[in-house]
């Protein structure tokens, strides 16, 4: 609605007549673009013939800013990358720095990281499912899902004082230990969650209209998912059995028993359902982690106030709510990184939209976009 474009272009139709193709400009501010994405959709009647995403409306230059910050000062910047799942970017960055500086993280800190990140996965998936519900017009679903997210955010608030930008995971451990009574509160939230999730499953995914809207929309084949670098629930919805938590385990994940939900059709419905059941699996992981966690230090001993790793570069990645979140940190031996690169899963997943949208109606376009779950802080960095 905001940017003026030439909205009618003459094209030739199948029978060789010159017809006008309607160009609909969606975004950069549109209720269903989940942020500031712009999609230029060429439509024939209601059918999208070409969809071209234009990104960069939230490009804040975080990678450039990192070059003028010390290693610890970068942590708040990573919060603002994926603002729906800040813990992930914290953790991925810290893992890269720890690998670069050869820091060993205490076991309790690893457990806390797992617990917070799995909570974050629940929060993030609730946002994704809720907003894809809102895309199809089921606004109540959004409110219900957001209410679940709110419970998790309350836990985070108790933990680190922030509702959204936590800066909780720091290089060498976590910022502070769990507050008193937090584990009980967490357990109470996690115990109630699966029932709520099942209720939402019935409300939305069990609804005939929603099934009609989501099934068969934006079908992504498994081969395409791998070739185009899709990861996370976007790829798993297509049946790509690849989850870093299990396949290239990091932290203490090998100690937990959990399943990876997989879809088979690769449509918006399967992607949404995958997210929903991943949230249930996250509850399982959190419960196990709360059982196993032992008292101990939460930050590495003898951690320097000003980190200056030796020259070199390191890459590490974790499974975020959106997929493989990688961080590449290069050091020149000084107290500031030489280069920081964030491999954001949303960026790679969003590249698929031009491939998935053609042939669907404009109503489906927003559903497909929602099912890819982009977060533009992360896409544009």
């Amino acid at each position, binding site marked *: *609605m*905001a*940017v003026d474009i030439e909205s009618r272009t003459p094209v030739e139709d199948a029978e060789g007549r010159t017809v006008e193709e309607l160009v609909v400009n969606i975004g*950069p*501010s*549109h*209720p269903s673009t989940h*942020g*500031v994405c712009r999609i230029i959709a060429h439509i024939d009647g209601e059918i999208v013939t070409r969809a071209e995403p234009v990104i*960069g*409306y*939230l*490009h*804040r*230059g*975080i990678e*450039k*800013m990192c070059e*003028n*910050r010390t290693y610890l000062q970068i942590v*708040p*910047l990573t*919060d*603002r990358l994926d*603002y*729906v799942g800040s813990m992930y970017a914290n953790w991925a960055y810290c893992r890269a720095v720890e690998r670069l500086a050869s820091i060993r993280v205490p076991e309790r800190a690893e457990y806390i990281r797992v617990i917070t990140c799995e909570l974050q996965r629940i929060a993030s998936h609730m*946002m994704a499912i809720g907003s894809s519900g809102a895309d199809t017009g089921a606004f109540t679903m*959004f*409110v219900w899902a*957001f*209410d679940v997210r*709110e419970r998790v*955010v309350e836990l985070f608030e108790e933990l680190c004082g922030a*509702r*959204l*930008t936590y800066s909780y995971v720091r290089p060498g451990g976590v910022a502070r230990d769990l507050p008193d009574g937090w584990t009980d509160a967490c357990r109470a939230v996690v115990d109630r969650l699966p029932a709520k999730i099942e209720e939402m499953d019935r409300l939305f995914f069990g609804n005939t209209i929603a099934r009609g809207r989501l099934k068969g929309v934006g079908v992504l084949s498994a081969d395409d998912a791998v070739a185009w670098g899709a990861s996370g629930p976007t790829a798993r919805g297509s049946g790509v059995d690849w989850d870093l938590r299990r396949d290239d385990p990091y932290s203490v994940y090998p100690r937990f028993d959990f399943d990876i939900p997989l879809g088979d059709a690769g449509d918006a419905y399967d992607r949404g359902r995958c997210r929903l059941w991943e949230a249930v699996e996250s509850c399982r992981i959190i419960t196990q982690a709360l059982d196993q966690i032992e008292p101990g230090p939460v930050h590495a001993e003898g951690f320097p106030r000003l980190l200056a790793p030796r020259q070199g570069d390191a890459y590490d990645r974790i499974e975020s709510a959106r997929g493989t979140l990688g961080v590449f940190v290069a050091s020149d031996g000084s107290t500031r990184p030489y280069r920081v690169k964030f491999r954001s899963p949303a960026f790679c997943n969003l590249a698929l939209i031009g491939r998935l949208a053609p042939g669907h109606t404009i109503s489906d376009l927003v559903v497909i976009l929602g099912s890819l779950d982009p977060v*533009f*802080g992360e896409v544009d960095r």
Partner: protein
Amino acid sequence: MALVDRIGRALTGAPLLLTSVDALVDWSRGQSLWAMPMGTACCAMELIAASFSKFDFDRLGTFPRPDPRHTDVMVVAGTVTRRMAPAIARLYEQMPDPKYVVAMGNCAVSGGIFFYDTYSVVRGIDEFLPVDVYIAGCPPRPESLQDGILQLRELIQTRSIAAGHSHPREMVLPSAGDERAGSVDARERPSVPHVPVRPTDPGGGPE
């Protein structure tokens, strides 16, 4: 209105009728602030949270509508980049008068954490939009946003359309002595229209 006003003034020496109409209009405008959610980044999450179940913006008569033509207040929530600024300015122009702008979060207020070292961020949306209320925080809590909307209401209700009744644009900040300061329950606030006391105006209005 001018004629009615003149008659009222002739009869009572004050723009009687217009004052009552004025109070109703101000009350309506303050009470019904529909938001254009211009969520660009992180703050958008708190903007959503503010209108959902736990915080419920609708209690205050505010609810988000995505179409600028139907809204009164643009809540700019999040970092505004140079590339995004023209789009926001255009959306602002599409809003019908009277319209207000709330800058939510440090990025919209001043650039915030993205003030230094970055080449693409606008350092505060007041570079291109007339901002009425600034809300600090990174991100501000939903309650802060709601408080910002209440302050905007206060601001609207102390402005006036009646001749000689314009009030200086200044914020009523809650202070320790204000009965508002500690009130958590929004229902305790007076919902009757607050007809403002006219300040001494040397420019001369009718008395």
